[in-house]
């Protein structure tokens, strides 16, 4: 019986680890930061389950033993209290809390340590610095060392320390990739820092967790972890995307699409070096997994999105484009052009 109780928290943890979708759930941590946070969650859960079990046992015992039975009219002894008992149940919680507080304080400092950003250490440590700038309702990823800007999909190399600085262009947002690391807020006027590492290649789901307007729930993004060589290739191509993709050959449909893009989109969206920065950079748009952070990538969704932007993401800055502004033929060409915006082979 005693052994069974000991197994209870373990069983719960096992149960928990099975919860949620891979690359989304904090209960399926990947990388040192999420691991550290998961072990704190587990430690606190063990301690708290211990507390719960103690309280529940006393509670159930009391309810059964001292319930009023039919015909029972005795008046219980009026007890004042008991000093010893009170000292015991003050001391034990203090000890339990210390067991939790000490590792927590240590981890809090470890997680806050992004000091690799100082110049001396920068040389020694393998790291990539990314500025995450949150907008209503999309994410901008700025790679100052690589001189590139990406939108919505954040490419990172595996097994490398990723150092993030967080900013916001409008209201407060919060950057969260549960499987890789807990969140930090993007606060207007303040730059917050955090770090994490991803040991495995894969696409990790990220979300905004601070209420930021009507399309708050649609402010998803992806963290794409690739091996360091592939990352370097990606960064190089992002900096200098292939001419054939960004400037399709004259006479092709895609070239017509580029003209539509130049007329309607370029003041906000950049491809390569050209274009505005109000909206997401579209240099590698054709390689996105989703449109607008959440719609499955296909031509139909892309057209719907461009035609009814406000329907799909209410409150977003991008206008919806009607037939008068972009007719069907132009729309098809634009989609062709966008589909071709690829920087990997």
């Amino acid at each position, binding site marked *: 019986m005693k052994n069974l109780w000991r197994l209870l928290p373990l069983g719960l943890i096992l149960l928990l680890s099975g919860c949620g979708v891979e690359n989304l*759930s904090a209960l399926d941590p990947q990388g040192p930061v999420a691991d550290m*946070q998961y072990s704190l969650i587990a430690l606190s859960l063990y301690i708290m389950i211990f507390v719960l079990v103690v309280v529940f046992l006393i509670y159930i015992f009391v309810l059964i033993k001292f319930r009023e039975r039919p015909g029972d009219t005795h008046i219980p002894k009026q007890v004042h209290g008991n000093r010893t008992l009170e000292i015991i149940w003050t001391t034990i919680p*203090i000890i339990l*809390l210390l067991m939790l507080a000490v590792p927590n304080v240590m981890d809090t400092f470890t997680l806050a340590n992004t000091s690799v950003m100082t110049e001396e250490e920068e040389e020694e440590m393998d790291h990539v610095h990314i500025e995450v700038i949150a907008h209503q309702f999309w994410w901008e990823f700025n790679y100052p060392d690589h001189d590139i800007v990406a939108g919505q999909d954040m490419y990172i190399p595996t097994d490398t320390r990723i150092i993030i600085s967080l900013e916001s262009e409008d209201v407060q947002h919060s950057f969260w990739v549960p499987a890789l690391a807990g*969140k930090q*807020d993007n606060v207007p006027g*303040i730059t917050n820092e955090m770090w994490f590492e991803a040991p495995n290649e894969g696409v990790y789901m990220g979300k*905004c967790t601070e*209420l930021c307007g009507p399309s708050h*729930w649609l402010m998803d993004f992806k963290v794409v972890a690739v091996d360091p060589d592939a990352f370097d290739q990606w960064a190089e191509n992002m900096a200098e995307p292939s001419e054939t993709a960004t400037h399709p050959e004259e006479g092709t449909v895609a070239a017509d699409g580029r003209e539509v893009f130049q007329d309607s989109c370029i003041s906000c969206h950049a491809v390569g070096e050209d274009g505005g920065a109000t909206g997401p950079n579209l240099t590698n748009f054709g390689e996105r997994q989703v449109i607008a952070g959440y719609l499955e990538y296909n031509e139909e969704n892309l057209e719907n999105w461009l035609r009814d932007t406000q329907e799909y993401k209410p409150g977003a800055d991008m206008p919806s484009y009607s037939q008068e502004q972009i007719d069907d033929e132009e729309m098809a060409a634009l989609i062709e052009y966008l589909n071709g915006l690829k920087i990997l082979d």
Partner: protein
Amino acid sequence: MEWLTTVDHKKIGIMYLAGGAFFFALGGLEAILMRIQLMFPEFSFLSAQSFNELLTMHGTTMIFLAAMPLLFGFMNFIIPLQIGARDVAFPFLNALGFWLFLFGGILLNISWFAGGAPDAGWTAYVPLSSTSPGHGLDYYVLGLQVSGLGTLIGGINFLVTVINMRAPGMSMMRMPLFTWSSFVASMLILFAFPALTIGLLLLMLERLFDAQYFVVASGGNVIIWQHLFWIFGHPEVYILILPAFGIFSEVLATFAKKRIFGYSAMVFATLIIGFLGFMVWAHHMFTVGMGPVANAIFAVATMAIAVPTGIKIFNWLLTLWGGRIQFTTANLFALGFIPSFVMGGVTGVMLAVSAANYQFHDTYFVVAHFHYVIIGGVVFGLFSGAFFWWPKIFGYRLNETLGKWFFWLFLIGFHLTFFVQHFLGLMGMPRRVASYLSNQGLDEFNFISTMGAFLMTIAFIILLVNIFVSIGNKDNVRDPWDGRTLEWTTPTPVPEYNFAQTPLVRDLDAFWHEKYEGDGKMKASEPLEDIHMPNSTILPFIISLGLFIASFGFIYLNYPILFVGLIITFGAMFVRSVKEDHGHHIPVDRIKRDLEGDHHG
């Protein structure tokens, strides 16, 4: 008309209860609409904008317009009776506090019909709130300002009442725990609400008069709002839970037929919780970038609250220990509170672990946690107190069978709704999302959660039915539970002057002491004579109405309306200042007639 002008703490208490119950139902309706929207992934029952308005109004309504007024209702009705007083210290202010709350609440809800409710969450973080289009947030700042003023006035009134109005012999350390915890909650109100007032004032100036406190480009700082809000907002949860703790202390002692275990430890634990509750506000801001030093300090300080709370839990368990536990509905809610609240408490400690909080913060884990403590603590306390004091307040007893149905359905529905939300949070569901995508593994738990919410709704309907079908149930309404404290010595219905003669208190649980050590009657501490009582007045209603009108002037920057409203308010205040009002005396003959009627009845 009698109700518009009354300054009787009992009538004001009943009005608080009625007003709070109305807003509670409204907040519940908002909740169930949100749960329907979240029943299926990518469901389009509501638009995202409506959802954000609902979540804002649900939180605001439940905290400011339901939980607090309902507690104020009990405090108003019960505290003067428990301490053997004839009224509160400032009957006029008491009425003013109520009317300000009611007009503030109505104002806030008018926003639904005036082009959109506030949509930035009950926390109204800037710059989302300062830049939110439309007038929703203007209703928020004005509505909360008006009703918050009422709360502050009410809190001060309770403090003075408890300090000054206790019957002879009732030392502070003989006060019933409900009075004690309400007293500490009132201290928290006194210190916390000014922070809210200032925050709302800054936000109002920014929204209506283009001030730049929170505009980064002009050197403003958005974090100021969060600090001000949580310096109020964190104590606020203790303002809610402490009186509920007090109710449980009364109910558990009464139905275990035992004196509360460790009374003085309970008092000190309450004071320590009140103090620490003030010191830990920034644990709501672990992810905002305060740095590891501040995070570590606030983490450890927050965890410390578990110690006095644990003391209280074990003292309650030991109060039950050796008792004769009766399973009345009032006690079922008190007993159901213990495991439910402990579950909410332990997740509170988990949230205090700052480094792990980066995973919990702003997710459904937090939603689960605070609903466990607020429903499992405050709402259970309100229901327990309702069944407990209903006979004294309304003069009839609620049906116990329906009460037990209500309890069990509510308990099961509550755990079904919120237990799974812990997992939803860790599985990647942020809070305050109008929907969630399919294929993210969030579907089943959300569906279960909504089913639980339906069960709670059914339970609440049973309570409403109970309130109406039990009206004739009038036997033994004076002291139905073999009560321990002074409120049970009064006749039901309680006369205007509460006590014909102020009682003399000789021990903790004064009534119980007289029943089992004396002759079952309170000793009187004064001869039977004329009783001085305050006069009724319409002025508190008019002062509040004036502010209500002026608020529209602010919201739409319509200066004529603004000035008309302010003139009404200040005019009524002027009348109050210059008109002499010495109250009236209730002649001793009438009191004697009441006493005889009481003995025959």
